[in-house]
């Protein structure tokens, strides 16, 4: 299957820099998500990979071949667009057939592939409908079938779920992942929704202002964000002041605890503490006051207004949160089972 290597990509539009020295290596069969807010350059990177934009510098290598000068028609990729982009004058079946016809496959082969695609995306009822007769979710499944019917080397998805309802989004997201694993096609998935990215990707590349901040499996991003941007973008984070105590240890929330960076005594830094790493004790002399207590089922989210650390989010197992109520004076602390903290550097956001 296909490996993807984008190296040193730079792209400017007029005076604004969309991508700055962007490099990405994808293993065969891997699903990589490019995640970030609008304007971060993720769509530009995808379009350069597809061949719709020419980079000012850098190369695009797929399966060892340099594709940088190839137009999109020659790259043999598949793509799913945010607005589905189904040809309105063709039925679902004909849309799927389009790429196969271009590849000059025999009609027997085309029929077989189309039937299989329809089955695999559960479109039997809609196969002969036109796009204007289908719902968003159905259209996107047709778009997906159309993209993979041609056995592409790489599958590209440009925010495919953004235009859909929440419920449809979840189902379709899992379907995309299931199909992708089954076929084993190398996939690049662009999105601004971190839940999507974390749910289905093998690795996620978090982007900001034209730069790739961190490329890592979802868990790694969550537990070991490299900087403040990644820490805030993925999940919820409490940014807490940390003071260097002795080599490798930091003082956070009154506790001396190992951190993931070397420390000098008195050095100031920020620690990324996840909500589930905080415990909340009622205390008359506590530094915090409970702002709200939201029961979320298994977890209760407690928001605390702390004198020293500002707004804090704590996710407590509901059973333990029973005694907490708004306006109560509390002392937040790190849970006992937290064995180290992640330092993310001074907050530049």
């Amino acid at each position, binding site marked *: 299957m296909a490996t993807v290597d984008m190296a040193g990509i730079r792209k400017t539009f007029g005076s604004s820099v969309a991508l700055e020295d962007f490099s990405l290596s994808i293993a065969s069969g891997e699903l990589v998500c490019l995640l970030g807010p609008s304007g971060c350059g993720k769509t530009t990177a995808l379009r350069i990979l597809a061949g719709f934009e020419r980079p000012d510098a850098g190369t695009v290598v797929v399966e060892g071949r340099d594709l940088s000068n190839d137009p999109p028609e020659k790259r043999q990729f598949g793509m799913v667009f945010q*607005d589905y982009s189904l040809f309105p004058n*063709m039925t679902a079946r004909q849309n799927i057939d389009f790429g196969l016809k*271009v*590849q000059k496959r025999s009609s027997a082969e085309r029929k077989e592939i189309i039937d299989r695609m329809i089955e695999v995306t559960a479109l039997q009822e809609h196969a002969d409908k*036109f796009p*204007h007769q289908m719902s968003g979710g159905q259209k996107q499944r047709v778009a997906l079938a159309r993209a993979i019917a041609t056995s592409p080397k790489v599958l590209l998805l440009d925010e495919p779920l953004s235009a859909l309802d929440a419920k449809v989004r979840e189902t379709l997201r899992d379907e995309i992942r299931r199909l992708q694993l089954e076929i084993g096609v190398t996939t690049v998935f662009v999105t601004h929704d971190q839940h999507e990215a974390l749910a289905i990707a093998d690795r996620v590349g978090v982007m900001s202002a034209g730069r790739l901040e961190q490329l890592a499996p979802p868990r790694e991003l969550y537990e070991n964000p490299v900087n403040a941007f990644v820490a805030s973008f993925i999940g919820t984070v409490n940014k807490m002041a940390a003071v260097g105590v002795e080599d490798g240890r930091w003082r956070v929330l009154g506790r001396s605890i190992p951190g993931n960076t070397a420390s000098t005594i008195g050095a100031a830094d920020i620690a990324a503490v996840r909500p589930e790493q905080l415990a909340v004790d009622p205390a008359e002399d506590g530094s915090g006051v409970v702002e709200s207590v939201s029961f979320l089922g298994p977890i209760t989210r407690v928001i605390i207004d702390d004198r020293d650390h500002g707004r804090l989010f704590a996710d407590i197992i509901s059973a333990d949160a029973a005694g907490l109520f708004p306006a109560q004076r509390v002392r937040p602390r790190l849970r006992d089972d937290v064995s180290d903290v992640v330092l993310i550097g001074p907050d530049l956001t």
Partner: protein
Amino acid sequence: MRAMFRRENRLGLFVLIPFAAFVFLFLVYPTLVVLWKAITPHGAMGTSALVKALSGTYRTGFIQSIALSGWSALIGGIIGLMLALVIKSLKRPKWLHPSLDSWSAVASQLGGVGLAFAFIALIGTQGILTKVFNNLGINLADYGITAVGFWGQVTVYLYFQIPLMFLVMMPAVMGLKNSWREAAAIMGASPARYWWSVGIPLLTPSTLGGMLLLFINAFTAYATVYVLNPSGALVPLQIRFLLQGNVITGEEDLAYAIVAWVILLLLTGLGLITVMQRRTLRWSSQ
């Protein structure tokens, strides 16, 4: 609540009735009279007037009018469509698209007397272009490029046909999403393939509708032909001839018959346009 509702109905009627009466009195009623008179020549029901209106010089008139309208619709339609496509694809300069929008709104209304004058000044016998080409040794009249000849008139008609087509086609052309082009490309299709399979089928209903509109527009043009070629064999001029009473007795009803045919032609045209519109609407509700 119900009383208020009824008052609203009354208000609607209060506004609609004068309007409907106006349209009836000044438009529908005279037309019905004409249609009636067309099928009752000399007071008795019959098709003699209708048949006569399509024979002899009148037949020539219809054919000429159809030819003039048809050619100007076809050529104007193609150029107008190309203009729309070109404007859509050129992103720079930024003022190009809005200027052309304004210009086409203006130019499509600029038929009539002034336009005829302008072309006489350009390619008439004393026209400046005629003179320029004469100096180069070419007599434009030999090529049929005069203001009064058939192709000269087609050229004049294009002046308002092209902007009209541009106006009509712009929405359809803008509706061609770039992402369709890109989707086709990523699946390996060349631009030609895309146009053949997607672009042209999508644009065809609007294009046909637009050209029909151009045809209707040209068929009923009067001022331009009156100035350029007052003695020509074209339907509007023949109607004028009949109206001014220059008829052999027994042929007064001819005017009604001709108008009846014209109305039938226009109604058919409009009907076809509506059919085309519905098709486009179906596909565009993505």
